[in-house]
């Protein structure tokens, strides 16, 4: 049905903010993140016929995005490199003190997230930021629930350590 494809495109438009957010977690840099979103949108449109109606479109695209990012990192050979989100830093000082504190806090969290191995970062992003249930996140990452749970626990432990002493 032509209308179902159009409907899916509309749905993808409404998902763009969330896709950008997950991409930001994966890529760190806003420009890289939006490139990743664009790539995944193009791939999703190519593979729309493979999407199973009734399943979560966001989870389907998160999976695609994560795989694309792993591939990108592999091809660039920079796995594990820690990024500082430069735009957050660049804008500090242009707002009031309260907004600045929020940005600094956000920068801490972003920087801490970027130190995590990708598999823990993805698990935490899908559950704690995107709000997927464990089962949904495990499916999106293609791992058993037990694996997801241990990645979540390890990632949280590291974040707690890195962020302790900061604002709560």
């Amino acid at each position, binding site marked *: 049905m032509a209308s179902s494809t159009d409907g899916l495109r509309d749905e993808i438009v409404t998902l763009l*903010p969330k896709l950008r957010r997950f991409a930001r977690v994966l890529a760190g840099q806003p420009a890289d993140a939006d490139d990743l979103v*664009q790539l995944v*949108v193009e791939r999703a449109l190519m593979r729309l016929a493979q999407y199973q109606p009734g399943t979560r479109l966001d989870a389907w695209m998160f999976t695609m995005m994560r795989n694309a990012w792993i*591939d990108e990192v592999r091809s660039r050979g920079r796995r594990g490199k820690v990024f500082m989100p430069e735009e957050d830093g660049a804008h500090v000082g242009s707002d009031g003190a309260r907004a600045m504190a929020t940005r600094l806090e956000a920068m801490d969290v972003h920087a801490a997230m970027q130190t995590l191995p990708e598999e823990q970062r993805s698990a935490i992003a899908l559950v704690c930021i995107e709000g997927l249930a464990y089962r949904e996140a495990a499916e999106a990452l293609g791992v058993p629930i037990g694996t997801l749970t241990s990645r979540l626990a390890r990632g949280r432990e590291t*974040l*707690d350590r890195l962020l302790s002493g900061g604002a709560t």
Partner: protein
Amino acid sequence: MSVTHEDLMAYADGELDGADKARVEAAIAAAPDLRAVVDGHRALRSRLSAAYAPVVEEPVPARLLDAVRAQPAMDNVVSLGAARAKRTPGQWQAREWAAMAAALLVGVIVGGQALRPASAIVAANGGLEARGALARALDTQLAADQGAVRIGVTFRTIDGDTCRTFAAQGGGLNGLACKENAKWRVDMAMRGESRPATEFRTAAAETPPEVLARVDAMIAGEPLDAVQEKDARARRWTAPR
């Protein structure tokens, strides 16, 4: 009564119900310092969502909106997946697929005898599926094996699927199939020049450039080597974890 660290985390994330939830709540009642652990998990969770919340509020760049509205690029006329994505879907789709499958089957019939034409590739579930001898070869054969069907490259896609190139009928039918839901979805198939069956060729030499171009477009990393290929077969072509 014991609860693990992961139980407390799952409880904090609202993942537990019934007996598991009651067990954790009883443990917290008995040892109030566990409450602090749960609160800590929840606090970190709110901190994470707050840190990334501004991204959702940002205006979406126009290029991303344009990308959603754009027609997908047609990367190769012989790529059925791309052709399908480009064509405006409609009620004709199933019929077009059937026609395409029929056209391919003609190739099989002209090409030779080893594959039963009616069972090689069929239209199913809005796409093409390998059946019969072709599906069996895709399931069981390694690149090193000889047979009526030759397997070329086995590789993983960026989406974690496992795909394999194949040549049947001494090169008369070439293509690429990916394992999906226990079936081999034929991503691409094309007629090639039939070659004498006695002539030895490596699988790579048999693979037409159009198929290789499609592999390049889909592949993540390197193709599987012989060991990885065997390993993948043992796992029935699902991705390793």
